[in-house]
């Protein structure tokens, strides 16, 4: 399992991949929630990104075997997820619902999970999981009195108590404060570095950008893009790229750049130029040459819209 590749073209056969969807659709009556989605992910962190109501939870529910796909198959390891309750030996699940057993203490809640997983030393496993999310101070208080962020972290602790190879998380950062968020991200990163597969959903771009090497973008039930989001951005050739350029003589450089055919817009700011171009790779090669020819020193050349946000807004509005 640890040998699986980071990313693969969607739909391609990939026996080693740990979470795989093949032509999966799910509809409720005549409402299609997920429409013909195929992907395959392996170890590392994958972000499931999409606006509210896009079908993220439906996909995660199907991956966890809590929804039957109307069409297609979701596989965990090599067996279908639907009705496969044994898979939870190897899978941890955190769902969005906030409800917890409010009458248990934090430690008891995690211990419950450990016991249900049939671990040989449940107490030790529960203590380790509580430590991993840094909740030792609150572990003997009743969960009913926890804040939203604490409940969220506790749910993660309960999901990782049996050290699963696969972790499915639905909006795991909901209600967490910035500190808790960073801490949980560290925990997830560490688990990913150990070779685990982590699939988490979010509609907050920041979270996905900071955490995921790999994204699946879902819009209106369809998978519209997958892979590294920087690579996705470069595939969007019909949309201009924006660079920030600063040099020893911005005004002169602007004149020279406008002359190049790959450039179709230059804005002269106080400190730097904003250049719009249709060719990402070409421009990074051409710009230094133009500057050199004019005897201008290039101080900075930065792609400014290569953020997940620009990718996302492009995909959603397309």
């Amino acid at each position, binding site marked *: 399992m640890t040998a699986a590749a980071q990313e693969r073209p969607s739909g391609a056969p990939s026996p080693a991949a740990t979470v795989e969807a093949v032509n999966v659709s799910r509809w409720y009556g005549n409402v299609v929630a997920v429409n013909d989605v195929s992907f395959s992910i392996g170890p590392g962190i994958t972000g499931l990104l999409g606006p509210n109501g896009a*079908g993220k939870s439906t996909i995660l529910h199907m991956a966890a075997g809590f929804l039957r796909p109307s069409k297609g198959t979701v596989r965990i390891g090599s067996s279908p997820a639907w009705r496969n309750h044994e898979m939870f*030996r190897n899978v941890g699940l955190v*769902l969005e*619902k906030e*409800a917890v*057993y409010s009458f248990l203490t934090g430690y008891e809640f995690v211990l419950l*999970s450990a016991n249900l997983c049939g671990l040989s030393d449940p107490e030790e496993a529960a203590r380790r999981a509580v430590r991993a999310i840094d909740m030792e101070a609150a572990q003997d208080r009743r969960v009913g009195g926890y804040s939203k962020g604490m409940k969220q972290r506790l749910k993660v602790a309960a999901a990782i108590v049996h050290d699963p190879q696969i972790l499915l998380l639905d909006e795991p950062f909901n209600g967490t404060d910035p500190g808790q968020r960073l801490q949980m991200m560290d925990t997830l990163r560490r688990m990913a570095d150990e070779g685990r597969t982590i699939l988490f959903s979010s509609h907050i771009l920041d979270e996905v950008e900071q955490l995921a090497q790999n994204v699946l973008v879902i819009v209106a039930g369809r998978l519209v893009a997958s892979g590294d989001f920087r690579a996705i951005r470069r595939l969007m050739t019909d949309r201009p790229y924006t660079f920030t350029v600063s040099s020893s003589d911005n005004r002169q450089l602007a004149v020279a750049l406008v002359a190049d055919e790959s450039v179709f817009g230059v804005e002269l700011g106080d400190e730097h130029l904003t250049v719009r171009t249709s060719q990402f790779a070409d421009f990074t090669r051409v710009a230094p040459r133009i500057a050199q020819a004019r005897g201008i020193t290039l101080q900075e050349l930065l792609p400014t819209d290569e953020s997940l946000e620009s990718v996302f807004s492009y995909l959603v509005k397309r």
Partner: protein
Amino acid sequence: MNATVFALTLRQFARQRRSLLLFGLALVPVAIAIIYRLGEHAHQHEETASFLADIVVTAILPLACLILGTSALGSEIEDGTAVYILAKPVPRRDTIVAKFAASALISAAFVVPATAISGLIGLQGVSGEGIVIGFAIATLVGVFAYTAIFILLSVATSRALLFGLAYVFIWEGLITDLFSGTRYLSVRQYCLGIADLIATVSEEDFEANLGGVEGLVLATVVLAVALVLAVRRLEAFELTGTD
């Protein structure tokens, strides 16, 4: 059976006001028996038997099982906490059996003593004729059958309470009264049959519509079928509601 689920369910019941309500329900027959004993009675056997049949078996037993049976798993499914049990490598059969055992145990702990105590009070001063034992065993069997049915309802539908009520008060209460052929599908009739089998009172004093052996066999069949169906439903459990 899964011991963790069993213990968790007992804890869930213990902390809720539910148990207070159950305690109140169990006190009702005892209180009625005491009131009854305040008067003079010529037909203690007949009156006690019909009191146990009309109050305990008809109302207290199904109501107690209804509260516990429909909420043992139903309330967790409703509020979403069921996932913490279901997203674990525990066979669903073990989960159902544990939920069943916990709620049947608690129902029985309230209903069977209430039956026995109120029966003993009612019959105090005359020979028992097996009435108390008969009804105690009958309510115990009834607890098992009703609980299994209500657990099945709570897994199969989000309106378990409604269907449970309809079964107890409309089907068993009205339809079975009108059409005696339906007595084979009534847990109440099974219980009365079993009580009749064990009690040795004469027919004028107490007479059931169904044979005791039939009742016992049918109750076992209902118990088994309901639990098997509940397991199958839970194995195909889906989380409803989209994101």
